[in-house]
């Protein structure tokens, strides 16, 4: 796979589902880390129930699920620094800005939308 073009495209991964009800969040993160390991320009977006994935102090073991949220801390090793979260989605769910990783940028809907549209490819999970 040596002929993967060096980051000519920007890729956005949009997370729309809560962390433990399905494998979507984990599979989105797996994809993000692989894009990162190939040095592709990748950004993560969290909107709707997807914002639950960023909330700290969750106890996955109480429902017998593997806690993949810990893996988010690997993003910085792949220089994945563009992590955006929808402010309105947080407010609608009455969630505090208590996140389990740093570098999260909370954006109002308008700016969130503009950032998303600046990417060439959008994957939704």
């Amino acid at each position, binding site marked *: *796979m040596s002929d*993967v073009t060096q980051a000519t495209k920007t890729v956005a991964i949009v997370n729309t589902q809560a962390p433990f009800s399905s494998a979507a969040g984990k599979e989105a993160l797996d994809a993000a880390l692989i894009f990162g390991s190939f040095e592709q320009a990748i950004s993560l977006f969290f909107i709707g129930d997807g914002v639950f994935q960023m909330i700290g102090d969750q106890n996955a073991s109480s429902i017998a699920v593997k806690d993949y949220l810990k893996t988010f801390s690997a993003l910085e090793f792949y220089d994945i620094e563009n992590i955006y979260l929808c402010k309105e989605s947080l407010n609608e769910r009455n969630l505090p800005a208590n996140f389990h990783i740093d570098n999260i940028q909370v954006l109002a809907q308008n700016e969130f939308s503009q950032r998303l549209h600046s990417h060439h490819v959008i994957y939704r999970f």
Partner: protein
Amino acid sequence: MQNTLALVVTTPPNSNLTTSAINLVHAAIENNVKVIGVFFYQDGVLNAAKHLSIPSDEFQTLTQWQQLNSRYDVPLYLCISAAEKRGLTDELNNHEPSSHELSHEPSQETSNIDSVFTVSGLGELVELTSKAERVVQL
């Protein structure tokens, strides 16, 4: 230069989005768009299940994928980690069978993945994303 398309299928065979994906590949080919690959991820990996038996009066997704691969050389890439999570593997019974097992089951399958699918990983998704002029996820 010919336009190129990569398709990402994330829905199981019984989803209408899978039917849409198959229709999209057909439409692309008819319009001289080169489909450089279909990547099966999330529940989409279930499309590769060899033993899935859909009632004969319903849409035969596996037959459709087989035809797209054999007639038009559309590459079908399967994410093996997502597949194994859902019971699909190409390493069935890869241990050394004991003489006891051999005597009872002379022919053992080594895979429950249909052979038109290429076993691959997320690196293939990166490559398709990078190469294709347009990427569509269903």
